[in-house]
């Protein structure tokens, strides 16, 4: 079986000549159908560039992105990959409910039907009772859940999540992580998750890719064979700590990586 999403030798250079900047220097990764995979790396390692390429917003300089085994140009990817950027980007002029149905509306579903479909998922996403509120009236955690519901309702099999909990405090963050796992276990989407939080990556993922400092290159996947469903206590277990040490080792910028 093909991986759901595959990245082969993707590089990205901005500009040309002496002023050019290499943001990605050879990224290879794959995500199986229904798998939860994380990419971790230091700030500015090109994670966002990689996600823009995967979402179809930008083209790689070299290399390929394959969806269901078929190579895709940027334009083919647009509209086929669910993308949740770091900022929730809820539209201030739409109510919470109407923000979540954006993807359905663009697909041509009538507003009425789209709302009905969204409302069915509101309790699960912890948004019940806030349908008619403006985004500016709800908390950061709720905004992220609304943004995630918008991404889910767009109906793509593959979802890219770019540090969705980065702006939340650590307590709400832990809650949101457990909640995300529940949602993922019920809906079984293929998820590629970017974070710079090692605990978060280990707790959530089946496998974790480490990205080196700029220019970004994928160093190694670490598989996280800790059984599911996982509880948050798992983050203090021996297995977790062992893997964390390995990831920390990989993240330490070596001479070789810096010269690459």
């Amino acid at each position: 079986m093909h991986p759901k999403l595959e990245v082969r030798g993707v590089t990205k250079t901005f500009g040309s000549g002496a002023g050019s900047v290499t943001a990605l220097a050879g990224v290879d990764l794959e995500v199986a159908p229904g798998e939860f995979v994380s990419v971790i790396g230091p700030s500015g390692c090109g994670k966002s560039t990689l996600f823009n390429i995967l979402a179809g917003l930008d083209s790689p300089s070299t290399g390929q992105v394959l969806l269901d085994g078929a190579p895709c140009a940027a334009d083919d990817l647009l509209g086929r990959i669910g993308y949740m950027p770091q900022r929730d980007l809820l539209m201030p002029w739409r109510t919470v409910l109407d923000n979540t149905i954006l993807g359905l509306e663009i697909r041509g579903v009538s507003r009425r039907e789209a709302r009905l479909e969204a409302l069915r998922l509101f309790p699960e996403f912890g948004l019940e009772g806030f349908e008619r509120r403006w985004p500016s009236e709800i908390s950061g955690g709720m905004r992220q859940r609304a943004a995630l519901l918008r991404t889910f309702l767009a109906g793509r099999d593959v979802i890219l999540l770019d540090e969705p909990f980065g702006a939340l405090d650590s307590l709400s963050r832990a809650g949101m992580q457990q909640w995300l796992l529940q949602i993922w276990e019920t809906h079984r989407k293929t998820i590629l998750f970017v974070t710079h939080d090692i605990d978060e990556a280990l707790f959530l993922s089946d496998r974790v890719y480490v990205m080196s400092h700029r220019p970004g290159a994928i160093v190694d996947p670490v598989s996280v064979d800790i059984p599911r469903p996982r509880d948050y206590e798992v983050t203090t277990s021996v297995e977790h700590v062992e893997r964390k040490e390995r990831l920390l080792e990989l993240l330490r910028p070596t001479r070789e990586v810096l010269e690459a």
Partner: protein
Amino acid sequence: MLVAWEVGVRISGVSALLLPPPTAIVSTLVGSRALFLRHAMVTLVEILIGFALGAAVGLVLGVLFSYSRLLERAIYPWLVASQMVPVVAVAPILVLWFGFTLTPKVLVVALICFFPVAVNTIDGLRSVDREMVDLMRTLGAARPRIIRSVRIPSALPAVFSGLKVAMALAVVGAVFGEWVGSSEGLGYLMLAFNNQLATADLFAAIFVLSVMGIALFFLVGIVQRSVIPWYREDRGHHEPSKEG
């Protein structure tokens, strides 16, 4: 404050020709209310037509410019120049061309109004959140949909700021148009009372004009709240983006 004014005028013995006491102003207001109402209606019509015309032209120009750099480079400097030429100089020419009719006043008002609307519309349409546009693209949205669902709504708060400024200026513009040449309207009344040294009546006319101006300004605010109820001036809706 009104009491202090009344008492002050009476005690100090300032001539009522220079500063009439409030009671005198109120009594002329009430006594000649039909007169004030008739002239106020004239000015109101000038303001409303001129404002509508100016706002429409401003909106159209703003939209055109934000979609065509070429058009903007060709015409924008002329628009700015049009604002540098004082209305004081233009108004008499308009009166010369159109006579003591409604037209020159409407044109003066429109000339003043279109500019803030155009500038704010351009800024509003340009201030669109790039990331929100990208998000729409990943959801498979085509250009017309992005314009309708993102660009236009995100421009509306700025457009309304422009409309408010325009409305405040429209009142001044109408009065000015009347000063240059007219036989009716609040501006005409002011000039007439001033020449007759009817200071209390002059103050009454100014009062009527102020009330009308304030009401019109708040009217724009009310329309704004019903068109963009999600927008609150006291809280920005763009949180800063974070490097990842």
